[in-house]
């Protein structure tokens, strides 16, 4: 379905019959705005509208500006946009900036309890003032309610302005406050206050309104940290270790909640999991290594700084061939950087993490559905290849709500635990067990677990070792092992997820990764409308499967779209495929906000024109 417009920034949204609406809510954090934001998101979703929400929150607990952007798009385009039809500008401190982001002809809802700073005014947008604070002060007694309810009041106005189904919103409130009647009532009251005010004072609905659609059949609304946690639950992970760090904390929080619910023996109350909040990230990865060496499925989740701290032990796991699973929910670097902003900035660091010659398996989920899927597969890969597997998600996938197909599970599925010699095999064994000898066609050697059988004993070490596991400083013996490790990594290319490819036989393509997918696919539609047909590939794993090489071979030029300064995915493609460098060009956007199609279109056009 092609939109009637040139670029998202220039189109006049809301006029098309296909719903395409972007609203932004500007608030102060710690004042309870997120429940109102979610209410709107969920209402759009229940109306059957493809929707996405991008939460731009500060790295702070209370008192700083925070924004929530919602895009509703009948064609299913859910990437971020940078111009909004409706701005709910509830933070006076950011009025000027917020009003700049409204499209010409758009609307600003503001709290008319206080006067509006005239200098921020633009003549090409409409101002819809509503005395929100005053209304709340009149309607509610407690100071807390007076603050919290402002968000619901303005939400009510948005419902009226955009013709959102009021029943759906009321039902959502009823579900949310099931069993808490007073809370439900005050929220409903606040909602109606805003709703009625808008109906009485504004031209409702605005031209850019929504209507019920059938776009979300079989779909759910969920964030990637939650689905990743689900994936680890379903993969049978029993040990997890972590150190809190934004934006990965919510992954382990979700895993903890899930384990409490599904891993506690209903009779004994005893737990079939152990989650350790470690003293730091060096400990987290150490715990995971120990548990995996000892036969449990174990993982850790972290973000950039944690990956840096794990570097040494990632090398230990690689060289001792211990399976470990690490999630890196990437945030904007370098150093502490912008902890709540998104990037794919750890690709190179992760691919070659640790000193010396090392190469790792990376998985790049593109949405919460893949976070689930890849979380499960990460363990199969880690155990089959007895090596670290890193899943690189990002703030946008991990913490924002996405519409994805309902998650499914095949009950016949059994995990691939890789080559492990059990008690039976060991008991009847005559020849000595050599930890690093006799690889299979994937260059993997059977491992044994402690405690199983005396014949399985070996000595794991991060120092130079030969195929028996013995210490060595002899070149040939050392080479035998490290060369096999290289072959093993290469062999994983046949087992990792293939790229997602959409091909129409174009000569030029966009190649991308992770959360960039939706914006890049939307850009392809836009560029197609401009007469530039492009193919599409989203990389989903490293080492690169043969399909990646084939795709690159089939195109004269590929623009690699990614969110980092140093073209890290392009670098990895240059190094690890046979493609000539000059056939790969870069489109980079790394300011920390989720990618928009406009940035991609502009980036491609700028290079096509030169």
């Amino acid at each position, binding site marked *: 379905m092609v939109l009637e417009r040139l670029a998202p920034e220039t189109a006049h949204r809301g006029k098309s019959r296909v719903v395409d609406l972007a609203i932004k809510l500007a608030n102060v954090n710690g004042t309870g705005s997120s429940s109102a934001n979610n209410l709107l998101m969920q209402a759009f979703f229940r109306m059957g509208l493809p929707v996405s929400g991008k939460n731009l929150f500060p790295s702070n607990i209370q008192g700083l500006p925070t924004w929530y952007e919602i895009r509703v798009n009948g064609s299913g385009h859910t990437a971020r946009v940078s111009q909004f039809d409706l701005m709910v500008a509830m933070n006076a401190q950011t009025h000027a900036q917020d009003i700049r982001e409204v499209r010409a002809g758009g609307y600003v809802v503001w709290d008319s309890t206080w006067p509006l700073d005239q200098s921020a005014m633009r003549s090409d947008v409409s101002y819809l003032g509503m005395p929100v604070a005053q209304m709340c002060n009149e309607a509610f007694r407690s100071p807390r309610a007076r603050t919290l309810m402002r968000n619901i009041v303005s939400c009510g106005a948005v419902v009226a302005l955009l013709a959102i189904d009021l029943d759906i919103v009321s039902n959502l409130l009823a579900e949310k406050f099931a069993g808490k009647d007073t809370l439900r009532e005050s929220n409903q009251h606040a909602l109606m206050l805003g709703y009625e005010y808008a109906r009485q004072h504004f031209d409702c609905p605005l031209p850019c309104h929504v209507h019920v659609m059938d776009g979300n059949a079989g779909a759910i609304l969920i964030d990637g940290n939650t689905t990743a946690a689900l994936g680890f639950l379903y993969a049978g992970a029993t040990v997890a270790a972590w150190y809190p760090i934004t934006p990965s904390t919510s992954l382990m929080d979700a895993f903890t909640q899930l384990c409490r619910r599904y891993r506690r023996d209903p009779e004994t109350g005893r737990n079939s999991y152990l989650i350790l909040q470690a003293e730091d990230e060096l400990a987290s990865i150490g715990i995971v290594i120990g548990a995996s060496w000892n036969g449990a499925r174990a993982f850790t989740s972290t973000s950039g700084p944690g990956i840096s701290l794990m570097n040494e032990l990632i090398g230990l796991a690689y060289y001792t061939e211990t399976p470990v699973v690490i999630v890196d929910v990437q945030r904007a670097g370098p150093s502490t950087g912008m902890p709540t902003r998104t990037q794919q900035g750890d690709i190179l660091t992760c691919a070659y993490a640790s000193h010396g010659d090392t190469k790792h398996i990376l998985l790049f989920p593109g949405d919460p559905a893949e976070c689930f899927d890849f979380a499960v597969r990460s363990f199969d890969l880690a155990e089959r290849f007895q090596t670290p597997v890193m899943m690189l998600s990002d703030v946008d996938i991990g913490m924002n709500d996405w519409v994805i197909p309902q998650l499914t599970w095949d009950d016949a599925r059994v995990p691939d635990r890789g080559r492990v010699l059990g008690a039976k095999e060991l008991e009847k064994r005559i020849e000595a067990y050599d930890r690093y000898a006799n690889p299979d066609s994937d260059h993997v050697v059977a491992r044994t677990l402690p405690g199983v059988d005396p014949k399985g004993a070996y000595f*794991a070490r991060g120092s130079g070792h030969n195929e028996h596991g013995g210490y060595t400083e002899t070149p040939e013996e050392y080479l035998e092992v490290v060369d096999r490790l290289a072959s093993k990594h290469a062999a994983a290319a046949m087992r990792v997820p293939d790229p997602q490819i959409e091909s129409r036989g174009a000569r030029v393509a966009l190649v991308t990764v992770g959360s960039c997918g939706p914006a890049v696919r939307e850009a392809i539609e836009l560029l197609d409308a401009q007469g530039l047909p492009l193919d599409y590939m989203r990389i989903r794993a490293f080492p690169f499967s043969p399909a990646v090489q084939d795709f690159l071979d089939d195109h004269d030029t590929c623009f690699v779209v990614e969110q980092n300064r140093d073209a890290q995915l392009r670098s990895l493609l240059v190094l690890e495929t046979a493609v000539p460098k000059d056939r790969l060009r870069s489109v980079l956007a790394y300011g920390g906000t989720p990618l928009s199609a406009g940035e991609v279109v502009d980036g491609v056009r700028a290079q096509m024109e030169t």
Partner: protein
Amino acid sequence: MPSIEKPPIQHPGLRRNSLGLTIHDYEGSMSTLCAGCGHDSVTAAIVHALWEMETPPHRIAKLSGIGCSAKTTAYFARGAHGFNTAHGRMATIATGAAAANRDLLYIGISGDGDSLSIGLGHLAHLIRRNVRMVYIIENNGVYGLTKGQFSPSADVGSTTKRGDPNQVPPIDPMSLGLSLGATFLARGFSGDKRQLVPIIKAAAAHRGLALIDVISPCVTFNDHEGSTKSYLFTRHHDTTATESDFVPPAPEIVASIPVEGVVSVTMHDGSVLRVRSVPDDYDPTDREGVAEHLRRAHAAGDVVTGLLYIDESSADLHEMHDTTDQPLRDIPFSQLCPGSAVLAGFGVR
């Protein structure tokens, strides 16, 4: 002198324990440490204790960091899995291993550099989590493997071979352990195997982390006059706080220490530890008293050895987390995966 491989032939007349194993079955590969290194004596004590305890070798997991001391894990229990990890990180890897399988005997061997310098934070948190394992610090006051720099356990005034004195106050793992809520603290001397063996056996039976600080002289870099971690110094300043005897949970109980003035502690597994205090007033179950004793002794320049503190009542890692009796790594997948029906319930719809 050309180095010689140890002959693999077993002495035929050696005694066998109830598993039919001789003491050689608890040995490992030949030591590559310096002749006379204290660490080799610690190895001998461990081998002896394991043989007496009759632990099946494959039910032991040996872990260490990096250092001369870390190599020790290769020299005992060849039938056990071993993991020579990275410098300072053994505590973390042992924690993960213990989490995955609560049923093995974990023996961690570390050095004073490994544990008190680069690994200090991990050791502290291992103590707090009370991970069930035997954790031995082979304490020589120096970094052996990197050729003799001071470690954090070097005493003020102790000198290098060249005579430079250390000025930085030492870390005493026993006081540190007390202040962090450790539940088993003992100190031994590599030169006193008679004292060390029962300590190791008690440590293995302990419900939680058993920290054993063993003064283990480095003959190559820290056994000179002026060093306070030398054989001579330790022999002269060793004051014993307790003598312990360890009685396994067996039908017949044989105690080698007379019963008067003895504190008996029943261990987690039903075995009995009998501790005879050498100073009259010493009570290894009184945290405050122990702390005071250690401080006063340290101020007087004494090295107090023996089982110093024990608390069999605190929860260990698994108890704190209320995990199943079945080791986590053995729970079948079918019990771990909630299945398709449950999955269908997630997400806003």
